[in-house]
């Protein structure tokens, strides 16, 4: 007897759950109906990110690295599915390697990006990096998986919470990655992935007063307008490269805090 096929509904990833868009809308991409997020989904995702941020930011850096390493493990387990949804096995392997690479950076960022500063006076003066807060990411259109991982990991490893808008034309890899994230010990809400039309979601994300940084890697259309909207609360605006891998990518989403501490008191 033939089985009834169990079809998959491609949904959003918000607060560790997989809701449909509150608007109920979908759009067609890669031959599938994919959830088409609305401005209210952006609002919910930012709220979830804001709620999850303090816990993720206050985890020890070592622990964050462990959690991200587990994300690589979960991606490895989904190797075949991910390969079907992007350009193939080599892209998946690159993406997994990149997650592992950034996971290793988690507890080394403070040493490399921070500093102990020589000052003229009886003070210890040191600079430590701290996460910026909630980061909005417009993911590159291509490569579908590697582009997402490349832009997602730098804010994540630094302790930020992320609201990512997936590639509009190739969103399925992002939905698959969300499933790896959901089983990876990354706390719910730390990563939120929206699928939908960028021209609809980008302005809302750029103008949202509770978003602290914005990565315009995958922005199309009127980028200047997005930058203007982002200026309302002085967001950090980053034009990320679709294929960068460097600790300086992480620095874009960190605040450097300098402390003066009197010596001998």
């Amino acid at each position, binding site marked *: 007897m033939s089985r009834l096929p169990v079809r998959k509904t491609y949904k959003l990833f918000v607060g560790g759950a997989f809701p449909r868009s509150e608007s109920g809308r979908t759009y067609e991409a890669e031959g599938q109906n994919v959830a088409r997020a609305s401005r209210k989904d*952006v609002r919910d995702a930012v709220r979830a990110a804001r709620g999850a941020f303090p816990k993720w930011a206050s985890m020890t850096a070592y622990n964050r690295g462990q959690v991200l390493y587990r994300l690589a493990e979960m991606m490895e387990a989904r190797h075949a599915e991910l390969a079907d949804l992007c350009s193939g096995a080599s892209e998946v392997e690159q993406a997994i390697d990149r997650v592992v690479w950034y996971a290793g950076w988690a507890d080394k960022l403070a040493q490399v990006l921070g500093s102990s500063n020589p000052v003229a006076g009886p003070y210890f003066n040191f600079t430590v990096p701290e996460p910026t807060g909630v980061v909005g990411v417009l993911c590159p259109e291509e490569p579908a998986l590697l582009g997402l991982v490349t832009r997602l990991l730098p804010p994540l490893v630094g302790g930020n919470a992320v609201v990512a808008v997936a590639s509009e034309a190739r969103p399925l890899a992002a939905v698959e990655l969300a499933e790896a994230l959901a089983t990876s010990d990354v706390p719910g809400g730390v990563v939120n992935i929206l699928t939908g039309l960028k021209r609809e979601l980008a302005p809302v994300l750029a103008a949202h007063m509770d978003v602290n940084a914005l990565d315009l890697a995958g922005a199309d259309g009127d980028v200047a307008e997005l930058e203007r909207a982002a200026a309302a*609360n002085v967001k950090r605006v980053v034009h990320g490269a679709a294929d960068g891998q460097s600790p300086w990518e992480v620095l874009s989403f960190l605040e450097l805090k300098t402390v003066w501490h009197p010596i001998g008191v």
Partner: protein
Amino acid sequence: MAQAPVLPRGFELPLEPRLPRIGSVDQVAVEERAATLGKRSIKREAKLWALDLAIRTIDLTTLEGSDTPGKVAALCSKAVRPDPVDPSIPSVAAVCVYPNLVPVAVERLRGGAVKVASVATAFPSGQAPLDVKLAEVRDVVEAGADEVDMVIDRGAFLSGRYAKVYDEIVRVKEASGSAHLKVILETGELGTYDNVRRASLLAMAAGADFVKTSTGKLPSAATLPVALVMLEAIRDVYEETGRMVGMKPAGGIRNAKQAVQHLVLVHETLGPDWLTPDLYRLGASSLLNDVLLQIRKERTGAYQSPDYFTID
């Protein structure tokens, strides 16, 4: 026993023998109706109107053991001018503080439209001798409070000593003189909707100007169904006697959406006549910031962050 104000047939006192006649509450129906009304979609201009009304009806409250004159002073400033950068935002209706802090609030709000309310009668438990309660009420009125929020003696109510509850309200009403009297039923401790209805009618019979849901000290406070039961009791009294009693849900109303749901409930149950600070109040502390945030969101079109509103 003091003379009761005029009440619908069947509501005359003493209440005990007539309790079956005030009717019972259909729990399923009241919860269903409250849930349905809570789903009304209030958008754009209507939402702005509702949010403006919500601010005008707020009793901005601080009832903490850690309250200081400084905190109350800050609260008063916020009550008069809720959003420092936006003069179009109206003042709230009143501030609500503990008796010891009434003089601070009166001093700060002198000459303005914002009223001073004070809890009294051994708030929040109400478990104190009547003399003590009356002395407290006289003290706060003397100190200049415009409104007194009293608690009923739930211990007496739940053990069936309705006359004691009634007498206390009447005596407190006398002691509070020209000050408005709000009677807190603390519905979270009354157990059933029937009891909420009974207590509401009892309080109105004894002369309450307002009935108020809760002290805010219990986890279960101003839920929509409880508010609906109280509003229907107010409506029954109005329809029989023409007397308009006010309503004040308090406790647990933390965001603008909940506040609008409560306003919808009032509009649908009592009509627009009650949508005024003279007959309706929202007891809240953190609600005000969320309402300000929602107003700015409606006006600017951008979602807002609590980072840009005062911490209180």
